[in-house]
C-alpha cells in the first residue's frame, strides 16, 4: 500500500523525493562501516521477507512495513535497506515504480529512521519490560502513521484532484498502525530477551 506506482505523481514531487532520498542514502552510506555490509544486506532481506508475511486483520489481511523496527536495528542504514528492497521489488517483481523510487524510499524510511533515533535509546537502555513494550509499540505505530501521512502528502502535492483520496488513504493506515504497534512491541521484547545486541543499530 505504501508503494506509489509510476504515472501518478507530478514531476516536482518526484524530483524533490529523489533529492531527499539521495540525501538520506548519502547519510546512510557515510555512517555504514564496510564490515557491516553483509549484516545490513541480510537484515534487509529478512525485513523484506517479513513484510511479505500476510497478517490477517478482520476479513482482510495486511502486509507489515516494519520501518520503525528497521530504524531501531539499522539506524540510518534503513535508508539503504529500504531503497534496495524497493529496487528489487520494482525490477524483479514489477511492484512499485522506477521514477517513484525516491519518493517511496523517503515515505517509508524517513519515519522509521526518526522513530529509531527517538525511541531506540530508550528501548536499549530501559530495564523495565513494560517501558520497552510501550516504546516498541510507539516506534512501530508512529512509523506507519508517518508513512501514511507522507503518502497522502505526496498525492496531495501532486494534484488537488487527489485530495479526497488522500484523506481516505490516511484512514486506511490506522488499522495497519495498530497491528504494527502490537507486532513491533512483541518483536522488540522477544529480541531483548533472546538477543539484546540485535537492538543496537548497524549504522548510528
Amino acid at each position, binding site marked *: 500500500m505504501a508503494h506509489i506506482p*509510476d504515472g501518478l505523481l507530478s514531476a516536482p514531487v518526484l524530483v524533490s523525493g529523489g533529492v531527499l532520498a539521495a540525501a538520506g542514502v548519502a547519510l546512510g552510506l557515510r555512517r555504514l562501516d564496510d564490515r557491516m555490509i553483509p549484516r545490513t544486506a541480510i537484515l534487509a532481506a529478512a525485513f523484506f521477507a517479513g513484510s511479505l508475511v500476510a*497478517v490477517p486483520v478482520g476479513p482482510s489481511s495486511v502486509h507489515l512495513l516494519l520501518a520503525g523496527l528497521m530504524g531501531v536495528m539499522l539506524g540510518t542504514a534503513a535508508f539503504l535497506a529500504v531503497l534496495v528492497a524497493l529496487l528489487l521489488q520494482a525490477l524483479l517483481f514489477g511492484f512499485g515504480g522506477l521514477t517513484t523510487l525516491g519518493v517511496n524510499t523517503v515515505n517509508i524510511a524517513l519515519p522509521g529512521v526518526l522513530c529509531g533515533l527517538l525511541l531506540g535509546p530508550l528501548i536499549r537502555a530501559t530495564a523495565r519490560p513494560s517501558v520497552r513494550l510501550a516504546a516498541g509499540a510507539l516506534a512501530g505505530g508512529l512509523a506507519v502513521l508517518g508513512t501514511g501521512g507522507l503518502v497522502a502528502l505526496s498525492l496531495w502535492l501532486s494534484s488537488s484532484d487527489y485530495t479526497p483520496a488522500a484523506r481516505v488513504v490516511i484512514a486506511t493506515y490506522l488499522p495497519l498502525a495498530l497491528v504494527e504497534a502490537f507486532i513491533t512491541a512483541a*518483536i522488540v521484547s522477544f529480541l531483548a530477551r533472546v538477543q539484546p545486541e*540485535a537492538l543496537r543499530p548497524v549504522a548510528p
Partner: protein
Amino acid sequence: MTVAVPQVPVCDLRLRLVAAFIAIACLSQLRTLPVALAALAVAGLVAAWRRPDGRLWRRLLHVEGFLLLLFATLPFTMAGQPLFSLGPLTASVEGVERALLIAAKVSASVLALTALLGAVEPVRLGAALRALHVPEVLVRLFVLTARYLSLIRDEARRLQEAMRMRGFRPGTNRHSWRSYGHLLGMLLVRALERAQRVEEAMRCRGYEGRFPYLAPPSPTARDWAGLCAALAFGLAVTMADRL
C-alpha cells in the same frame, strides 16, 4: 561431456536501464487521454513482442489500494459535465477521463518496466548499476540482499508451517499478533546468525571490501538502436501530449 549453452544475444543492461527510465519518466508525465492510450498500446505491443509468460498479464491485474481509491473517488469528486448519477452522487466526464488517464499511464509504465527489465538476474543488474556509477556499497547491498531474499523467504515459510502444525490459527487478536511478533523476531535472530557466518566465511576467503566485476563489453549497435528507440518514443509521446 559438453553442455550446450543456448546462444542468447546478451543485451547491454546499462543502456537498457537508462532507456527504461527515460521511457517511464516520459510516460508518467502525460496529460491527455488519447496520447496515454496510444502509448499504452505501443507498450502493450512491445511487451507482447517479447513473448512474456502469463505473469506479466496477471501483474497488470494487481492494483495498489490507493489506485482503487482514486478510481472510486475521482469520477465523483471532480467538477464538470455530468455523465451519470449514482443515487446522490454524480460522475463527471472530466473525472472519468482522469481516472482512465491514470489507469493508462500506470499500466503502460508497468508493461514497459516488465518488458524491458523483467527476468534479469540481480547479479547482472548489480554489475550494470556499478557501471552506471551507483555507489559500490549500494551495489554490494543490492546483490547480497537479492542473494539472501529467497533463502530467508523459505525460512519464513518453514517457520509459518511449523506454527500451523502446532495448531496456530491466525485471527484478529493480541495472541495472534504476539505470535507473528515471535515469528518475525525469530526470523531476525536467524538472519543475524547467518550474517555472522557469512561475514566470517567472506573474511576467510580474503574479502576486502569489494567484489571483482568484469568490465562490461561495450554496447553493440543493436543496444544503441534500442536506446534511440526509447528516446524517440519518449520524445514523441511528450510532443504529441503537449502540442
